[in-house]
C-alpha cells in the first residue's frame, strides 16, 4: 500500500505538535543542563532513543497483529496500569529524537529528506502512535497542553470506583502515606536510572462538588527484568496508587506523566485520601501495616541500588540505556498478556544495539540533539519528507 499525501500531512502534524510540547518541556526543565552523579543521563537517553528508532516499529507490529491501538489505549486507561503516559511519550520522543539526531549528524536542514529513511515506516509509526495516545486520554486529545496541562485517563465509572474508596483524612495514616510516597518516588527514580519512569500523576478530575481529585501512582515495583533488578526493592505489591480529593489546589500534568501541585505543600487542603494497589480491574485498599512494609522495602531497595549503581563503570553508566528502554517496550506486551520469548528478544536486541552504539556515543562530548531540542530556533523535530 503506497503512502498518501494525506497520511504524510497528518504524520507531520503529529511531528509538529509533539515537537512543540517537547521543546516547551525541555526549556522549562533546562534538560540540556541535566547532570547526574550516578549516570550518563543525556547520552544514555540518546542510546535508548536509537534503540527505539531501530526496533520499536517492528516489535510493536507484533502487538498490533493481536489488538488495535484503540483497544490497547483503553486497556491502559485505569489505575496502576503500565505502560502509562510516560511510555507513550518515550516512544514518540525516542523515535523522533533519534531521527533528529541523524538529520543533524548528516549536516542536513529542515525540509531535507533523511537519506535511507523508510518514509512509510515512519509515517505508519507516527499515525499509530497518535491513535494510541488519543484513545488512552479520555478526552481524545493528543497532548496535555491541549487541556490546560491535564491528563485525564479515567472515564466516569473508573473515577467513581476511585472516589468510592476515598476516606476522611486521618493524620497518622496520612503522614504514613506521605512518607511512603516520598520514599517510593525516590526509589522509582533511582531504579530507572534517573528517568522519571514508574511515577505517574493524572487528573485533575472534577468531583462534582467543587473539589478536585487527582492520583499519584508508583508502578514497576516488582520488576525482575532489568539486570539490576535483584538489587531493587522486594516490594509486597506491584504498584501503589494514592488518590487525593482536594479543594484550593491546582495540578499540572506534563507530557511525561509527571504531576505538580500548587501549592506544593497542599497537605492542609486534602479532604479525603485513599491508598490502594491495583490489579487487573481490581483496587485493593492497603492497611497501615502494608503501607509501612512497602515504605521499608523501598528504603532498603534504595540503599542497595545506590551501592550497586555507584560501582558501575563509566561504560555501563551509558550502556544501561539498552535494558532501560527494553523495559519500556516490554510493558506493552505484559499488559497485552503476551509473554513467551518477547522479553528475551527485546533485551537481547536492545543490549546488542547498545553495545554497537556505545563506543561512538562515548566519543561525543554532549548530545547535540539535546541542545537543538531545548534551544533550537526552528522546529524541535523536522518534518518527514517523501
Amino acid at each position, binding site marked *: 500500500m503506497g503512502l498518501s499525501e494525506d497520511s504524510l500531512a497528518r504524520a507531520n502534524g503529529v511531528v509538529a505538535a509533539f515537537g512543540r510540547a517537547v521543546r516547551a518541556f525541555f526549556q522549562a526543565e533546562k534538560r540540556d543542563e541535566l547532570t547526574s552523579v550516578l549516570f550518563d543521563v543525556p547520552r544514555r537517553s540518546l542510546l535508548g532513543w536509537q534503540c527505539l528508532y531501530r526496533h520499536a516499529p517492528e516489535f510493536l507490529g507484533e502487538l498490533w497483529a493481536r489488538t488495535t491501538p484503540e483497544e490497547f489505549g483503553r486497556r491502559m486507561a485505569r489505575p496502576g496500569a503500565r505502560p502509562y503516559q510516560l511510555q507513550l511519550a518515550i516512544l514518540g520522543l525516542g523515535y523522533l529524537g533519534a531521527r533528529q539526531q541523524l538529520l543533524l549528524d548528516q549536516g542536513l536542514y529542515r525540509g531535507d529528506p533523511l537519506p535511507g529513511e523508510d518514509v512509510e515506516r515512519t509515517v505508519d509509526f507516527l499515525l499509530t502512535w497518535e491513535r494510541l495516545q488519543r484513545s488512552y486520554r479520555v478526552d481524545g486529545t493528543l497532548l496535555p497542553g491541549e487541556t490546560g496541562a491535564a491528563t485525564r485517563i479515567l472515564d466516569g465509572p473508573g473515577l467513581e470506583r476511585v472516589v468510592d474508596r476515598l476516606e476522611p483524612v486521618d493524620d497518622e495514616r496520612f503522614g504514613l502515606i506521605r*512518607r511512603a510516597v516520598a520514599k517510593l518516588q*525516590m526509589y522509582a527514580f*533511582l531504579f530507572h536510572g*534517573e528517568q522519571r519512569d514508574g511515577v505517574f500523576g493524572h487528573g485533575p478530575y472534577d468531583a462534582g462538588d467543587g473539589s478536585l481529585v487527582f492520583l499519584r501512582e508508583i508502578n514497576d515495583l516488582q520488576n525482575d527484568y532489568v539486570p539490576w533488578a535483584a538489587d531493587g526493592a522486594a516490594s509486597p505489591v506491584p504498584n501503589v496508587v494514592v488518590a487525593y480529593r482536594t479543594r484550593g489546589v491546582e495540578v499540572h500534568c506534563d507530557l511525561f506523566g509527571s504531576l505538580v501541585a500548587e501549592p506544593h505543600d497542599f497537605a492542609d487542603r486534602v479532604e479525603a485520601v485513599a491508598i490502594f494497589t491495583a490489579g487487573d480491574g481490581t483496587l485493593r485498599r492497603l492497611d497501615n501495616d502494608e503501607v509501612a512494609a512497602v515504605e521499608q522495602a523501598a528504603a532498603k531497595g534504595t540503599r542497595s541500588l545506590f551501592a550497586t549503581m555507584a560501582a558501575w563503570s563509566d561504560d555501563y553508566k551509558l550502556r544501561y540505556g539498552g535494558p532501560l528502554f527494553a523495559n519500556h517496550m516490554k510493558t506493552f506486551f505484559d499488559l497485552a498478556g503476551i509473554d513467551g520469548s518477547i522479553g528475551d528478544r527485546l533485551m537481547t536486541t536492545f543490549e546488542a544495539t547498545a553495545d554497537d552504539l556505545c563506543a561512538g556515543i562515548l566519543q561525543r562530548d554532549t548530545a547535540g540533539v539535546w541542545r537543538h531540542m531545548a534551544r533550537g530556533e526552528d522546529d524541535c523535530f523536522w518534518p518527514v519528507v517523501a
Partner: protein
Amino acid sequence: MDVVGAGELVSGKGTTGVAHRVETIDDVLELMNDPELSDVILLTDSASATAIMPLLDEVRGIICPVGGRTSHLATVSRELGLACVVGTTFTTGDDLDGRRVTIADDGTVLADDGTVLGAAG
C-alpha cells in the same frame, strides 16, 4: 549559640545535629554505614536529592546553599517531614563539617560552640 548562617526553612521544624558535608558518592557510601546517621544534618551543595537519596530517610536535617521551595530537595524533604534549609548564606569561610549545629524554625543556622560563621541570605 551564635548565628552562622540563614536560609529558608522549606520543610520540617527546627532541629539539632552534627553537620556532615557530602560532596561525593564515597561520602554518601561512608555515611550510609555510620551508626550515628540519625544525628546527622547534611551539608550539600546540590539542590537535587538524587546524590544523597539513600541518606534522606534517616538523617535529621539538610542545609543547602542553593535551591528554593520548588527544588527537588525541598519537595522530597517536605514529604519526609525532614528539616531542610535552602538558599543558605554563610558569612565566613569556616566549614561547619563535624560541628554540632541547630536549625531554627525561621531558617537560621546556629553553631553550638559559639562560632559566628554566616548571616541571613
